[in-house]
C-alpha cells in the first residue's frame, strides 16, 4: 500500500471533536485525531478507548512496595541478621520509609514507561510526518486521519466525505 490514510485539517478543537464524531457516525472505525493539546473526550470520540495507565501504575506501586519490603526483610532476618541488644530482627517500623520510596519509584516507572509503551513511542519515523502541513499539529491546527486499513476506506469517497466536514485542507498521507 502506498498510502497511510487521508488527513483533514481543522482550525479548532471543537471543530475537530465534532468532525471526529461525524466520522464515527458515518461508519469509519480506524480514525486518529491530532491536537496541539489534550482535548477532553477526543479519545473516546475516535474509537473505543480504555485507559490502562492507572492499573499499570497500581501494579508498579504494589511491585515496588512488596519488592522493597521483601528486600529489607530478607536482608535483616535471613541474609545478614545482626543482633543489636536483643532487638527483633524483623523491625518493621524502620522498614517503612524505604518501602514507601520503592513503592513510589515502581509506580512512577510503570506510569511513564507504560504510557510510552502503550503509545508505541519512541518512534523514529511516522508516515504522517511526510505531510508538510502536519507540523502545525504541534502548534495551532487540529487534524483528523482515516487510516487506509479501515474496511470502508475508499480514496475518493473518503476525500468527498472529508470535504463535507468543512476542513481547511485535505491531504492524502503517503507511506
Amino acid at each position, binding site marked *: 500500500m502506498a498510502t497511510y490514510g487521508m488527513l483533514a485539517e481543522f482550525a479548532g478543537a471543537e471543530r475537530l471533536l465534532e468532525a471526529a464524531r461525524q466520522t464515527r457516525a458515518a461508519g469509519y472505525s480506524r480514525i486518529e485525531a491530532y491536537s496541539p493539546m489534550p482535548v477532553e473526550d477526543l479519545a473516546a470520540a475516535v474509537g473505543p478507548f480504555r485507559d490502562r495507565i492507572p492499573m499499570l501504575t497500581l501494579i508498579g506501586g504494589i511491585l515496588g512496595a512488596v519488592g522493597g519490603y521483601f528486600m529489607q526483610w530478607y536482608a535483616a532476618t535471613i541474609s545478614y541478621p545482626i543482633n543489636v541488644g536483643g532487638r527483633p530482627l524483623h523491625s518493621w517500623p524502620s522498614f517503612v520509609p524505604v518501602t514507601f520510596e520503592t513503592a513510589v519509584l515502581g509506580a512512577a516507572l510503570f506510569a511513564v514507561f507504560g504510557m510510552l509503551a502503550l503509545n508505541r*513511542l519512541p518512534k523514529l519515523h511516522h508516515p504522517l510526518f511526510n505531510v508538510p502541513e502536519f507540523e502545525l*499539529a504541534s502548534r495551532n491546527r487540529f487534524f483528523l486521519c482515516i487510516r487506509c486499513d479501515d474496511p470502508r476506506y475508499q480514496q475518493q469517497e473518503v476525500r468527498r466525505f472529508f470535504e463535507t466536514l468543512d476542513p481547511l485542507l485535505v491531504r492524502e498521507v503517503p507511506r
Partner: protein
Amino acid sequence: MSNEVSVNYATVSDRIADLVLKRPSRWPWFVGFTLALLCSFAFFFACGWLFWKGPGIWGINIPVAWGYAISNFVWWIGIGHAGTFISAILLLLRQHWRTSINRFAEAMTLFAAGIAGIFPILHLGRPWFFYWLLPYPNVMELWPQWRSPLVWDIFAISTYLVVSLLFWYIGLIPDLATLRDRAKTRGRQIIYGLFALGWRGEARHWARHQSAYLLLAGIATPLVVSVHSVVSLDFAIGNTPGYHSTIFPPYFVAGALFSGFAMVLTLAIPLRHFFKLHDLITLEHLDNAAKVLLATGWLVAYGYFAEIFMGYYSADPFEIATVENRMTGPYAPIYWALIVCNVVVPQVLWQRRARRNVALLFGVAIVVNLGMWMERFMIVVSSLHRDYLPSSWDMFRPTGWDWTHLIGSIGMFAVLFLLFVRFLPAISIYEVREELHHRRMRHS
C-alpha cells in the same frame, strides 16, 4: 496571561519556542553564564582538592563533624521542593496560575536536588565508596543497615531525583515536538526530534499522557513530603539535644516549601525581565507566589516557636541549655539574623502593594534564601557544638573551602538553569495552549 486578542495557540507557541530557537537576550545570558561557569569551575576545583586532601580542608572537626556540607545539602534539597509543590500539588488543586511557572520550577527542583545529592557524598570522607549505601550483590555479602536514616535518605533522594526527572520529561515531550516542528536547521530538528520520541499528539496518546501526568502528580505529592521528612530524620533519630524532636519532619517540609518559593521568585523575576515574559508570568503569578511565601513563612515561624516551647516543656536541662545557647550563645547573631530574615521581613508581604512591587519582592526572596540557609546552619552546627559534655565543647569556623563549596554550588545551579532556559522551553507550551482552550470553552 493577558486578555489581549493576540494571544492564541499560534502566538503562545511561537513566543515560547522562539525563546529557545531565536535566543533573544544574548548578552545578559552570556555574561551570567560566564560568571556562573567560573563559580562552578571553583566548585570542581574545590571538589578535586577535597578528594585529594580529605574533609580536613573544611572547618569541621569533633564535636562539630557536620558543617557547611550538611547545611548545604538540607538547604538545596529544600529548594527543590517548591518545584514539585507547584507542578504536582497545585495541579491536583486545579490552580491554573501554576501553568506559567511549573516548567522552570520543575527544572529548579531537578537541579537543586541533584546538587543537594552531591553534598552528603562529598562529606563521606571516602566518597568513592558512596555506593556502599545501596544494596548491591557483593562478595562480602553485606547489606545496608535498614534501620539507619542515612540509608532511608539515599532511597528518598534517589527516588525523588528519578521521579522529578520523569515528571519533568513527560511534561516536556509535547513541547519538544513543538520545537522539532518549528526548528529551521537540520541539527535542531534531529536533536529535538530524538528527544520528542516521535510525539504526534494523537488523541489516545494525549489521554494516556494526561493520565500518567496526573498520576505522577498524585504520587509526587506524598513523595515530596517524605523526602524532607526523611532528611529531618537524619537529625531527629539522633539523641543530640536540638536534633531529637518530633516537630522536625513537618518543620523541615514547611521550611523546604518556604525556601523553594523564595527560589522560584528569585528565578522567575529575572527570567520575566530578561525574556520580556510580562504577559505570561504576570503580577498575578508573583502575587500568588508571594502569598504562599507568607503562609509557609508562618509555618516555619511556628516551627521556631515549637522548638523553644518543646525545649522548655521537656524539662530536660540539656534541651533547655540548647535553646538558650541558640539565642544567647556564640552563634546567637545567626539565630537572630534568621529570625529577622524568615519571620520579620516576609511580613511586608501582607500588603498587596508590596507583593506587586517586583524589585521589593525580589529583595524579600533573596533575604529568605539567606535566612533559610542560616536556619539550616543553625540546626546543624549550634546543636553539635555544645552537647552533653562541656569538656568537648568547641566552635565551628568555616574555611575558604567551605565557602568555595557553597558559592560554587550556587554557580553550578546557575549554569544548569541558564543552559535549561537556552535549550528548552522555560514555560510549558502545551499547558498554556490547554489553558487558552479551557478559557475559550468557558467563554462559549
